[in-house]
Structures are given as C-alpha cells and as structure tokens.
C-alpha cells in the first residue's frame, strides 16, 4: 500500500492525520456548506448583512416549503425525471445490443464502428447544435421532453457502447462457444447467456447516465424553453430570476436541484464508482 499505512507511523503523525481529515473536508466542501447555511437562514439575516453568523432563526422548513409549494420547482423536477429515466432505459437498451455485437462478433468493420461510437462521444456539443435543433424542429419535437430524450439516447449510446463492449470483452468467451455448440440461436445467447452476466454493467451505466442527463444544461437550453418541458438545470435560472436577490430561496432551490443525483450516488455508490473507473485498472 502506498503511501505507507498511517498505523505504522509514529503516534503523533496518526493523531495529526486524524485531525487533518475533517479540516480538509471542511475546506473542500466550504462553498457548498455556505449555500446549505444560506438555505436555512431567514430573509432578515440578508437585509441585516448577517451573512456568516448563525441564523437568527431556523427557517429551513419555510424556505424549502416555499421552493416546493410556491414555485415552478416541482414542475422542473418532474420534467427532469421524465427526461432522465426514459433516456437511461433507452441508452442502456441500445448499448446492450451494440456492445454485444461489437464485443462478441469478429467482422471486418467491427473496430471502425466501435471507433465511430467512441469518436462521436467526444465531439463538442456545438458542432451538433444547429443541425440537431433543426432536426428536432422538423420533427415537431422542439420544446418537448421527447425531443430532448431522443437526442440524449442517441448521444449517450456512444459512451454506453464503449462501456458495454469493453465489459463484454472481459466475459469468458467459452460460455458463448459452448452455447453455440448446443445450437442455441444468437438472439437466445444474447438474452439468456450474456444479458444476465451484464447486470453489474447495466447497474453501473444506469446510475452514471442518470447523473449525466440530470445534470445536462446545454441541451436543455438549446432544445427546450418553458416550464412545461425544461428540466431543473435550466429551470433554476428562471427560478433565480423569479426570486432575484432572495439568497435564502435561491440557495434552497439549488440544493433541491442538486439532490437527486447526490442521493443516487450515495445509494448506488459501489456501482457508480465501478462505472466511472472502468479501465482505470488493468
């Protein structure tokens, strides 16, 4: 283990390490804790310039209540879910198939198709912006959740294919060969042999894509406009315009907007990190 385990160090080093940890964490999350503090302060604290003192009264319930019952925030949150969940399902479904095709079969253009997905996954969004917006307008899907979902599914398929293909490559190929000897059709091999083995990859990708799509801002701005279809990342700017200079409410709104992927991360931590670090270890 590197660096040298702290248990093998002198007692003084151990104690200072233990003391340093919380301090470092506090510094690291400082800006975020500040917002959390703002979100439970009463409005009066801001007019009295009591920014950093203790809240003169605890108004967390009131501020968050305001966000949930007196703004468009629930609408935006619902939109975010209605955009994120179908995208996760669509992209994972498509990439299970593409990953299977590219991971199992040997054919001439295999590597080129794979590279097409990888390269496409890296392009700057701006080069897609005008054509994708036109396509969405032509389909009559501008300013709809469906329009956003279709694009997200297509784009995420690139990353998901990279992920799935590499995962399937690492599976024992003998299993598939044995099934073929048995005369099992390719479709059944996919469905009954490979897919059950892909469960960890599916779980990891699902949490990753959930976070990516929930946090998307660019496409939300390009393809949607109003409260009826905008996800929370885009909605938060109109929310902030509505409550201009009401820092206690803007802070509470930001925290609410950030919460779902955070909850997802803490609940599915193992899968999340397995997904993010695939390939980081040989």
């Amino acid at each position, binding site marked *: 283990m*590197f*660096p040298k*385990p*702290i248990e093998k160090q002198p007692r003084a080093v151990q104690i200072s*390490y233990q003391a340093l*940890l919380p301090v470092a*964490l506090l510094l690291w999350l*400082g*800006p*975020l804790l500040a*917002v959390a503090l*703002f979100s439970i302060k009463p409005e009066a604290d801001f007019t009295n310039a009591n920014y*950093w003192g203790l809240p003169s009264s605890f108004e967390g319930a009131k501020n968050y209540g305001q966000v949930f019952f007196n703004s468009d925030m629930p609408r935006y949150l619902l939109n975010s879910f209605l955009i994120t969940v179908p995208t996760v399902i669509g992209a994972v479904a*498509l*990439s299970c*198939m593409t990953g299977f*095709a590219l991971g199992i*079969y040997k*054919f001439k253009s295999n590597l080129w*198709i794979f590279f*097409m997905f*990888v*390269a*496409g996954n*890296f*392009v*700057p969004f*701006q*080069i*897609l*912006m*005008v*054509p*994708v917006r036109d396509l969405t307008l032509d389909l009559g899907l501008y300013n709809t959740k469906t329009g956003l979902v279709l694009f997200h599914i*297509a784009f995420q*398929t690139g990353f998901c*294919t990279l992920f799935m293909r590499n995962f399937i490559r690492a599976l024992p190929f003998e299993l598939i060969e044995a099934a*073929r000897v048995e005369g099992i*059709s*390719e*479709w059944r091999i*996919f469905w009954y042999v490979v897919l059950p083995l892909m469960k960890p990859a599916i779980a990891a990708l699902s949490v990753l894509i959930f976070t990516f799509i929930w*946090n998307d*801002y*660019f496409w939300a*701005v390009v393809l949607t406009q109003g409260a009826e279809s905008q996800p929370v*990342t885009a909605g*938060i700017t109109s929310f902030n315009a509505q409550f201009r200079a009401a820092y206690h409410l803007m802070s509470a709104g*930001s925290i609410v*907007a*950030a919460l779902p*992927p955070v909850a997802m*991360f803490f609940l599915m931590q193992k899968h999340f*990190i397995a997904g*993010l*670090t695939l*390939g*980081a*270890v*040989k």
Partner: protein
Amino acid sequence: MTAVDVTEHESWFHRNQQRIAPWLFLAPGVLFFMVYVIIPVFQSFNLSLYEWDGLGAAEYVGMRNYEDLYWEWVDRDAFYVSLKNNLIWLVMYLLAIPAGLFIALFLNQTVWGIRLYKSLFFFPFVISQVVVGLVFTWFYDPTFGLLNEFLSWFGLGPVNILGDERFVTYGIIFAGLWPQTAYCMILYLTGLNAVDPEQIEAGRLDGAKGGRMLWHIILPQLRPATFIAFVVTIIGALRSFDLISIMTQGGPFGSSRVLAYYMFEVALSEYGFRMGYGAAIAVILFLIMLCFIAYFLWSMYREEKGH
C-alpha cells in the same frame, strides 16, 4: 411445399446467423447515432459555408465566415479572446490531474470512517455544473462571498473576481477544477487500490521512498488511470460551457468567453441567429478537439492490436 420453404429459409438464416446477427444488433444503435451525431457533424461543416438566419433561405458565401473570424470583421475582440481562453482552460484544467493524485494519496489510508471521507470528497463531481456555478458565484461575491470574508481576515481588500477581466477566466476555471479534481481523485484511488504490493515492498528494500517511490514505482502502475484522467479532463476543458453561462455569460465585456460559449451566443441568443457563422466557430472547436480524439483513438488502437 410451404413447410419445406420455411425450413429452407430458416436453415439459411440459421447457417448465416453469425454473419447477420451483429448487424441486427447494431442497427438501432448505429441508426440513432448516425442521425443525431455523425450526420450533424457533416451538416455543420456544410452550414459553415452559408449565411443563414435559421428561418429564411441560406445563402452560399464560401469561406467568408472563416475570413470574418480570422480578421474579426464582425465581432471585434471575440474570436481570439475565446481562443486564448480555451488555451488557458486546457492548460489550467490539467491541474486537476496532479491535484486529484494528491488528494488520492492523502486519502489512501484505512483509518476509521475513511470510506465516508472518500465519498464526501468525491461529492462535488455528482452535483450539476449549474449548481457548482451558482455556488461559486456566491463564493466570489464581493459583498458577502466566503472568499472575501476569508481575505478580510488577512486585511486584504474585497476582490470582485468575476467582474475583473484579469481574474474572471481563472475564477471560473477554479470552480471547474473542483468537480474535475474529485473525478481524477476517484480514478487514482481505484488505481492505487490495484498497485502491486510486492513491487512496493521490493522498492522499499531497495531504499526507495516518498517521491522516488511515487515516481518510479507507483506512477508507472497508475498509467491507465492517468490516461483516463487525461482524456476526461481535456474533453471537459474544451466542453466548458455551463459554468461560463451561469457565472458570467461570457462577461465582463466578453473577456471570459470560450469558443463553445461564443458559438452559442452567435447562433442562439439575442445577438441574432447567425447559424452559418456559429457553425464555422463550431468547426474550429471541432478541429481542435479532433487532434485529441485522433490521439485517443490511436492509443486505443495500439492497445487493441497489442491484445
């Protein structure tokens, strides 16, 4: 008769199914990806040769959009400022890699509660960039921001980071480094977990420790993690849009624009719908990115052939 036909048909499919199956599995994914990603790239290339307001007829203008950019005939001090800022982003953003390694080394212990510490250190990466942008806008705020509160303890005057042309880009990059460092940290933590303990012992016996051990024994084993950290950081740097849009909208006076934001501004904001001109900016950004994409693919290709 028909029964025979069916079996013959089935057997043909059966005999060839290993050739046909991959294409059937690929079809939906490839189709979607073609329509929404690959073809639009070429459409943008084509569009950059036209002048188009998004509604009326497009007018072919050849290379004029690129000339306008090169000489800055349309927007003064926009293109080169954006290009320069992109370069600053690229270089500064790479600091996330050593910073992530540093935090990973700091946290790679097995004391009580360390798992929770690791998760909490990683946490900024999970938050949307929009919220990161808001958090740091308030952090920098000249009247109540935490930064100026902190500076005032040392008797330093208030600085308006986001309102000052000299600091604004660095201020935004610093905000971006926060989640990016967390990402690099998690990559390195995973990498450190898999470092071969025997090699470390062998190194210790040879008297290597600290920096030398890190450089000669640990880092070579962390190469895959470093490669991924490099890829995601470069892509992240060139994609920077959300933070700029939230924190400054390219200001003050366009001094924090990057190509990605400038393109958006030109094509889809109150400054008018200059789609062709925007496409030309996107093409330039794409060509910059293409250098890196080519390098990544080449590395992957060598890896594939090495197997």
